């Protein structure tokens, strides 16, 4: 007789709420009449994500391993789950914006209709909107929540796929510039599948070395120094799979193309939430399972951080498309985040874990806000992403330009914004662990990166507006909420980060 595994429904409630809402969403798609689907789906998605957010807050302090040891619900899990659920809810609001695009939604009505065909043009004018994106996004959020809780490589792999597959699909569903969107989906899908094959091979090798995929068993094997070459190779391949998701160079090549091609709300969602989930998994894998082998992977992460920061900062310089620029910024920020990962001692000492988690919150909020502003500035063909179109925006729409400037300053890490406190925390953590050369590179990279952020600000305020420039749409309630929340949080975390830093500090203990 095999005993039933222990299964703490309470501890898993955030996960169950989101995935439950996603399943109901599928039913709504199937049975609800078309004209009520949009409000119902949005309501459902918000209930699921906000509910999950509240649930994580109520669970604060929980430390347990459940579902037969496959899931760990501890401080980092809950902190990151709250982050993902919160950012996810904001992303859903961006998805739900209906007043900006004349076609009432950023998503194509029917993804199956070929781009540019007569039927496609016909559908532009209909009042129908796509609602399948909401269950898909919920499945992706559910996968992310699972990803950061995974205490088992198999669960981690399944979560990776659950979060990736819906993302591949919704990347290709843009209402406008559909060719770019579809191309982004194909690239994301092929490369993502390629990367998960490596992750899986790594899983198999680690399994071969230890006979188990539970992180706890792996840790014991690592501590006993059994496993040898197989284990090391497996570790390398697992890390590669995760670094891909986190868009760390040299596994970042998909990021600019996909960020640029995907519908902007989806890009915002990917940039904010996927990053959080991927780093949650990286931290857990490296510290819970391979903590004892830290001298094996530290040089690797060290190098990846440096490459990522340099590639992101340098390549961002010559970008002329804002979404693409923010994509390279995402690569650079992945490097900064790895700096925080380095700043965590395997023995649990050092503030690296707390710093990285705090950075994820600040980066997620800021980048989400920046992409939200991008959805406002439009020309006849959708969003006006080219840098030249933003010239003189400060004169035409001061509030939009001011909010964008705030986010850009935060991304650049200027004091009194969230970006500064985040950077400060991770750099300090790295220096405390003796990784000061890394911190120096990080400082230089942020200086270079600051240049391209400030370039946009200068362009907005001190260039003459282009003749037939873009219009700045009046955002509906959802986008307004997103902008208000992200801008307030960016400022608040810059001026009074104490509470959240403290929270991250107290949450920063893995259960093993």
């Amino acid at each position: 007789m095999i005993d039933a595994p222990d299964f703490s429904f309470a501890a898993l409630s955030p996960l169950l709420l989101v995935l439950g809402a996603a399943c109901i969403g599928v039913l709504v798609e199937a049975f609800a009449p078309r004209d009520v689907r949009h409000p119902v789906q949005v309501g459902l998605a918000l209930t699921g994500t906000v509910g999950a957010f509240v649930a994580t807050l109520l669970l604060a302090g929980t430390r347990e391993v459940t579902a037969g040891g496959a899931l760990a619900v501890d401080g980092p899990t809950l902190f990151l789950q709250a982050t993902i659920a919160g950012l996810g809810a904001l992303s859903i609001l961006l998805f739900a914006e209906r007043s900006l695009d004349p076609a009432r939604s950023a998503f194509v009505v029917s993804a199956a209709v070929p781009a540019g065909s007569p039927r496609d043009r016909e559908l532009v004018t209909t009042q129908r909107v796509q609602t399948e994106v909401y269950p898909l996004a919920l499945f992706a959020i559910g996968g992310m929540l699972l990803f950061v809780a995974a205490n088992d490589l198999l669960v981690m792999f399944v979560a990776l796929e659950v979060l990736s597959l819906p993302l591949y699909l919704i990347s290709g569903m843009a209402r406008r510039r559909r060719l770019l969107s579809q191309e982004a989906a194909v690239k994301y899908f092929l490369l993502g599948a390629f990367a998960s094959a490596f992750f899986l091979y790594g899983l198999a090798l680690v399994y071969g070395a230890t006979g188990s995929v539970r992180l706890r068993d792996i840790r014991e094997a690592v501590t006993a120094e059994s496993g040898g070459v197989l284990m090391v190779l497996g570790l390398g391949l697992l890390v590669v799979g995760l670094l891909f998701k986190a868009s760390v160079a040299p596994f970042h090549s998909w990021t600019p193309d996909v960020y640029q091609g995907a519908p902007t709300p989806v890009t915002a969602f990917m940039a904010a939430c996927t990053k959080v989930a991927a780093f949650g998994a990286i931290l857990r894998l490296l510290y819970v399972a391979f903590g004892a082998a830290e001298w094996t992977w530290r040089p690797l992460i060290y190098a990846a951080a440096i490459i990522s920061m340099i590639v992101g900062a340098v390549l961002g310089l010559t970008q002329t498309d804002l979404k693409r620029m923010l994509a390279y910024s995402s690569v650079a920020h992945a490097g900064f985040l790895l700096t925080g990962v380095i700043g965590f001692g395997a023995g649990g000492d050092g503030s690296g874990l707390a710093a990285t988690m705090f950075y994820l919150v600040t980066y997620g909020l800021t980048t989400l806000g920046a992409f939200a502003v991008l959805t406002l500035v439009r020309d006849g063909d959708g969003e006006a992403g080219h840098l030249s179109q933003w010239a003189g925006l400060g004169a035409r729409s001061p509030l939009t330009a001011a909010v964008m400037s705030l986010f850009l300053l935060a991304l650049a890490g200027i004091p009194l914004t969230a970006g500064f406190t985040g950077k400060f925390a991770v750099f300090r953590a790295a220096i405390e662990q003796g990784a000061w050369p890394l911190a120096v590179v990080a400082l230089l990279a942020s200086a270079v990166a600051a240049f391209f952020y400030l370039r946009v600000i200068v362009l907005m305020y001190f260039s003459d507006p282009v003749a037939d420039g873009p219009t700045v749409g009046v955002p509906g309630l959802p986008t307004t909420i997103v902008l208000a929340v992200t801008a307030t949080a960016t400022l608040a975390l810059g001026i009074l980060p104490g509470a959240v830093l403290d929270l991250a500090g107290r949450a920063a203990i893995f259960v093993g």
Partner: protein
Amino acid sequence: MNLSYYLVLAAILFTIGAVGVLVRRNAIVVFMCIELMLNAVNLTLITFARSTGTVDGQIIALFVMVVAAAEVVVGLAIIMSIYRTRRSASVDDANLLKY
């Protein structure tokens, strides 16, 4: 029989898959190569299940099959949609986003 033969075979299959991804142009074929990589992993997993005397490897293989199947559906949908628009399934033709 020495189990390492299976491992080496799996490694070779995995490598063939990886190289296939790099050199083939047709998106469907590229995708099949990725599936080949996943199946090579399955072979590895089964072999390790045998060598370590645990059953986990077999279970994982089942999960991998399921995930691979789901990936097929998603992947084909995406590839078909771009094929319908462009009349080409060559990954090299999907080249508008760059630099």
